[in-house]
């Protein structure tokens, strides 16, 4: 069962990656990226890293992909998004991909963490990782907050339109 799950997740990962690569519409590419990210989250569960799996879902599935979609909508790429306006031919593929992830998620919520991790010490991993992050890696950890602040300020500074006279601010 676990090798089967691995193969399933690997196929989803590579399929999502291929989807990003071959689809013409950037919206489709973003959705392929989402599939790949969720599948990689499943890989993290199987590798006994439940914290990283959650972070992967939240940061990549929740933030990064949405940011991509947001920018696509913001830029309003008319010519390229017209392709996505047609009824999506790949919707059954998406539905299948979502359904295929159900066993992994069900396993997570029904306490199958130890089974997913294949006997790796799943219990207490989050606590141990927290301890490692705040003891051994505390300086890099604090530096990431500076990095995120710099990225935040940088993104705002880059996209802020210089106030032109007469133009919108």
């Amino acid at each position, binding site marked *: 069962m*676990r*090798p089967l799950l*691995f193969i399933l997740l*690997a196929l989803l*990962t*590579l399929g999502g*990656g*291929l989807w*990003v*690569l071959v689809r013409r519409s*950037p919206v489709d*590419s*973003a959705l392929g*990226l989402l599939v*790949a*990210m969720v599948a*990689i989250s499943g*890989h*993290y569960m*199987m*590798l*006994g*890293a439940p*914290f*990283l799996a959650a*972070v*992967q879902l939240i*940061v*990549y599935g929740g*933030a*990064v992909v949405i*940011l*991509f979609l947001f*920018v*696509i909508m913001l*830029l309003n*790429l008319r010519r*390229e998004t017209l392709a996505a306006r047609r009824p999506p031919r790949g919707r059954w593929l998406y539905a299948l991909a979502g359904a295929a992830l159900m066993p992994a998620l069900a396993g997570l919520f029904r306490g199958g963490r130890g089974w997913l991790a*294949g006997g*790796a010490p799943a219990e207490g*991993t989050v606590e*141990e*990782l927290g301890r*490692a*992050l705040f003891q*051994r*890696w505390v300086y*890099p*950890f604090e530096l*990431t907050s500076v*990095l*995120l602040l*710099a*990225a*935040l300020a*940088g*993104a*705002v500074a*880059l*996209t802020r339109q210089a106030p032109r006279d007469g133009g919108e601010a």
Partner: protein
Amino acid sequence: MPELNHYLLLAVLLFGLGAAGVLIRRNALVILMCVELMLNAANLVLVAFGRERGSLDGQAFAFFSMTVAAAEVAVGLAIVVLIYRHSGSTDIEQVRLFGRDGQEEER
């Protein structure tokens, strides 16, 4: 039971997909997505080796890598928005900040 080798193979394939996308695609947004794929392949290797060595350092590294990737996406997408404003497209072939003779274009 997936072994380290399987994860390495998967990560190599995923990285290859990302690298191919960066080289083939011309849409700056899709190129950024492919960069994300490559970063994720690297994260997968970090976590897989961390489990193999029975150490949490791999997970800690992957965590930091994710943070850097998030920052990279924020700044990268801001740059894409700037490129779109500059040339009216996210096609990197149409972006020319300098003229053919290397002089900055007048705008």
